[in-house]
């Protein structure tokens, strides 16, 4: 596989990749969105930090705030959104950057892969033109050179007959190929941080595993930090070093992928695992979590999961749950968590 394009990128002046400075650090992030003037507490105090070469998976169901967290880092929220806390990319604060500054970083030091390549790619430009545009804009090199880089990128994400595919429009490609093209676009300028928002959810299972393995390999080769958002426990097991389980805008449990999947501490994580269907349960009754996620416009005072929790006690609904630390830097936000040593 030709490996020229990614390595001969000009060295970037910004951001010394010092070992001490995490590639991405998020402190106490809060996001309030508005629906018909009513505030919605989408993200309610999220903190994490990610070293180069590390993959964090944010696991959660719809409405948990996982996608909003990613969009906040990319500056993609509506102008009315109220954002609190800090997001630092290589030590540099992102949330107070002027729009022009952020635009210079976006796509170059931090990029994003979306769930639906069909709506994320521009339908009226060829794949080659879209990738080359990003390279020309961020690195100021000539168009012909950028096209050559685009072709090398398509080869790198294993798109067969890359030279011909450069001239394809998005609608001329299959779902899996489009997703590869979007990954090539996101990686065009060798970003330090890749944000992936359910990039395999719309794909068939035989294609999904190809894309997961491709992302895992590229991330290792390029030493990127990756934040991967999914609702699928199996996908999380395949891709992550660390997992953060998100519920109602908060991380309720963090830990290594092994810890969270093998020995879940939070009742919500345990319930999610129990309701993840697998063959062993044939003919039985699934241990489903009862009820539905809370209304983000009217979150309960205490633990947001308490109304659905089998272990809830009166104080759960009134006071915010403490975090219980677990080995290796993880935590569980539940006073009744059975945290194994």
């Amino acid at each position, binding site marked *: 596989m030709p490996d020229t394009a990614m390595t001969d990128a000009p060295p970037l002046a910004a951001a010394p990749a010092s070992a001490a400075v995490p590639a991405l650090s998020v402190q106490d992030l809060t996001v309030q969105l508005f629906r018909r003037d009513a505030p919605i507490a989408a993200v309610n105090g999220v903190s994490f930090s990610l070293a180069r070469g590390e993959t964090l998976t944010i696991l959660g169901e719809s409405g948990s705030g996982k996608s909003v967290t990613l969009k906040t880092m990319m500056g993609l929220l509506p102008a009315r959104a109220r954002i609190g806390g800090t997001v630092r990319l290589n030590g540099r604060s992102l949330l107070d950057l002027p729009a022009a500054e952020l635009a210079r970083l976006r796509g170059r030091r931090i990029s994003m892969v979306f769930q639906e390549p069909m709506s994320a790619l521009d339908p009226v430009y060829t794949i080659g033109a879209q990738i080359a545009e990003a390279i020309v804009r961020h690195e100021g090199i000539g168009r012909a050179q950028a096209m050559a880089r685009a072709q090398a990128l398509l080869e790198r994400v294993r798109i067969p007959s890359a030279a011909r595919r450069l001239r394809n429009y998005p609608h001329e490609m*299959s779902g899996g*190929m489009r997703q590869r093209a979007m990954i090539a676009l996101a990686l065009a300028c060798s970003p330090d941080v890749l944000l992936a928002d359910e990039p395999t959810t719309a794909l068939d*299972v035989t294609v999904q*595993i190809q894309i997961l393995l491709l992302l895992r390999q590229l991330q290792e080769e390029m030493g990127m930090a990756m934040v991967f958002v999914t*609702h699928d426990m199996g996908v999380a097991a395949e891709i992550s070093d660390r997992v953060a389980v998100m519920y109602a805008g908060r991380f309720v449990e963090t830990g290594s992928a092994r810890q969270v999947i093998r020995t879940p501490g939070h009742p919500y994580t345990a*319930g*999610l695992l129990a*309701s993840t269907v697998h*063959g062993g349960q044939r003919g039985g009754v699934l241990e*489903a979590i009862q009820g539905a996620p809370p209304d983000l416009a009217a979150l309960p005072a205490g633990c947001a999961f308490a109304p659905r929790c089998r272990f809830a006690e009166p104080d759960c609904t009134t006071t915010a749950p403490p975090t219980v630390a677990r080995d290796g830097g993880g935590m569980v936000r539940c006073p009744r968590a059975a945290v194994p040593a």
Partner: protein
Amino acid sequence: MSATAISTDLPLDPRDRGGAAQPLLTVEGLRKHFPIHGGLLGRRRATVHAVDDVSFFVRKGETLGIVGESGCGKSTTARLLMRLIEPDAGNVVFDGETVGSRTGIDVTAMRRQMQMVFQDSYTSLNPRMTIGESIAYAPRIHGLAAAAATARANLLLEQVGLNPGQFARRYPHELSGGQRQRVNIARALALDPRLVILDEAVSALDKSVEAQVLNLLSDLKQRLHLTYLFISHDLNVVEFISDRVLVMYLGQVVETGPVETIYARPRHPYTRALFASKPTLDPDRRTLEPPLAGDPPNPIDPPSGCRFRTRCAFAVPACAETVPLLAPPQPGPSGRAPASPDDPLHLVACHRAVAQAGGEGLDA
């Protein structure tokens, strides 16, 4: 569940025609091709082979799962069965009576006994009708008085776990996805059908909600003595809910059999690759190599012979020439019997399935 267990459990349905041993649904040689027109004169340029010579049966009281990836024809099959689209060829026999033939039953009568639940819970409900009205609609059309139809809708809402007093007057947009799918299930049950086709019915739901709806489906099946045709791309869900399974690839059935057999000892190289592509749920045993390369080919003008041969590691020239037919897996060249010699329901469409049964490399 075995065949005999099913047949003895069932109480006699007054609508039953052929007895418990007769399949509730038999499909023979079902085919649907969609022409693609183009150019100045609108001539036929290509043909989508959506469903090509598909045959199977569903026994009374069982759940038949259909799995496959996009473009394999599983949803087209469901629409053909419901006659939402007209088949080009093939017979559909419902409890011994051919659908749409002069001697059998007509489409309306068939639809009274066969109902469908779709993936998108929102677009399959009329946004201008309350939940209660939507469910009462079909019973009213079929002659029930307004008050009786409303009472029936309330009963159905209760059966799917929604409080009628709270939900009957609401509109679809006021419900969550899981609640709406419960409404769709209630509506499908409104005419007291014998067979329910569930086309990706839980696929759009969150995991915790999906588990609730799957439990509901199991519960309803037992209480109302239903038969399910469960279509899904989710291999785990199909394994959980089905008795037998049908694996489709590019418009054809490649393998079928009892769930235990297919999931433990798949014979077709595609079935094996499909199962091997499932994420492992174990961070210590991650997948190292993708079992298949590339996307499923387009069902427009599929490959000759075996349609899977272009992606198959075991393909030989013969695979391009003749279409493999569904047949029981044969003993291998070593003389070793296939893993399930007593299982007449296990069928596989592969020229090379013989060699594989002998344990040639694939038997990891």
